[in-house]
């Protein structure tokens, strides 16, 4: 069986998910996903603090795909839109988990992994300082601010970001990252 981005989330409950999308993550998809999740969070009467955190992390997750998903390998079996990604949002015992998957060029992996290792090994205070430092000193790029989204996700959730890479071919890997937002 050929590799599908969905293989990376085979351990997650896609059918029971609050949000599931695989395809071209354009502005319209982002709008619909945000509307849908916001409606569901309001209906479920989550407390405002958790609701806001979930919404914020969802925005960053979707926009990470929008800005940073690399092009799909030519040999990939399905459609190859410019902003190809997968997002799944699940309810967990204590809150929510938001997972995204996309392709990354092999040459970007080292930098991304270094960034994530740094975030995950930092205390909340260090993450706060890192955020401020990048905010104040880094020039904005065409794609938005390099990596501030990930730092913001770690800061708002207070949890490590769980991630993994799966090699697709010598030039591309699939990348999965999860953020857990808990009601604590």
């Amino acid at each position, binding site marked *: 069986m050929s590799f599908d981005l969905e293989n990376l989330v085979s351990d997650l409950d896609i059918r029971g998910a609050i949000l599931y999308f695989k395809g071209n993550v354009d502005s319209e998809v982002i709008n619909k996903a945000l*509307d849908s999740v916001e409606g569901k969070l309001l209906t479920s009467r989550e407390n*405002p603090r958790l609701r806001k955190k979930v919404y914020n992390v969802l925005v960053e997750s979707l*926009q990470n795909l929008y800005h940073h998903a690399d092009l799909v390998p030519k040999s990939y079996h399905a459609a190859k839109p410019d902003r190809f990604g997968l997002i799944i949002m699940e309810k967990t015992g204590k809150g929510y988990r938001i997972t995204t998957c996309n392709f990354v060029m092999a040459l970007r992996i080292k930098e991304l992994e270094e960034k994530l290792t740094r975030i995950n090994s930092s205390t909340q205070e260090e993450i706060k300082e890192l955020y401020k430092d990048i*905010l104040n000193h880094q020039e*904005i790029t065409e794609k*938005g601010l390099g990596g*501030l989204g990930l*730092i913001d996700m770690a800061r708002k959730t207070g949890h490590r970001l769980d991630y993994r890479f799966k090699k697709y071919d010598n030039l591309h890997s699939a990348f999965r990252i999860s953020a857990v937002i808990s009601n604590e």
Partner: protein
Amino acid sequence: MEPIIIEGTPKTPSIKFDEKDGIFEIKGRSIPENSVEFYKPLNEWLDNYMQGPLDKTVVNIRLEYFNTSSSKCILDVFKRLEAIHRSKHDVEINWFYEEDDEDMLEAGEDYDSIIKVPFKMIEIVE
């Protein structure tokens, strides 16, 4: 000078910077994919305003959500306000946050620590 007035949308805030009425306000959600494009007219307006600002400029920021891409653009707005403050004009930034929204309060505190302009953190109690 002519005011800058931008209607809000589900992803972009309403903006009213009106020298004549003394109203300077950003309100709503700021989560567009392309924040630079959205904030460009406001920063250009401020570049002109800086040439002859009011004796006192009070800016109200009432944001419900903002994304990281907006955070830099908002900082750019504040850096212009800081320049006005440096030129011996009073500037004050009122940063509103909803009760229990510690993330929004912390975001205001981040800006307060970077920008040398008096900040007031104002809690909105529902």
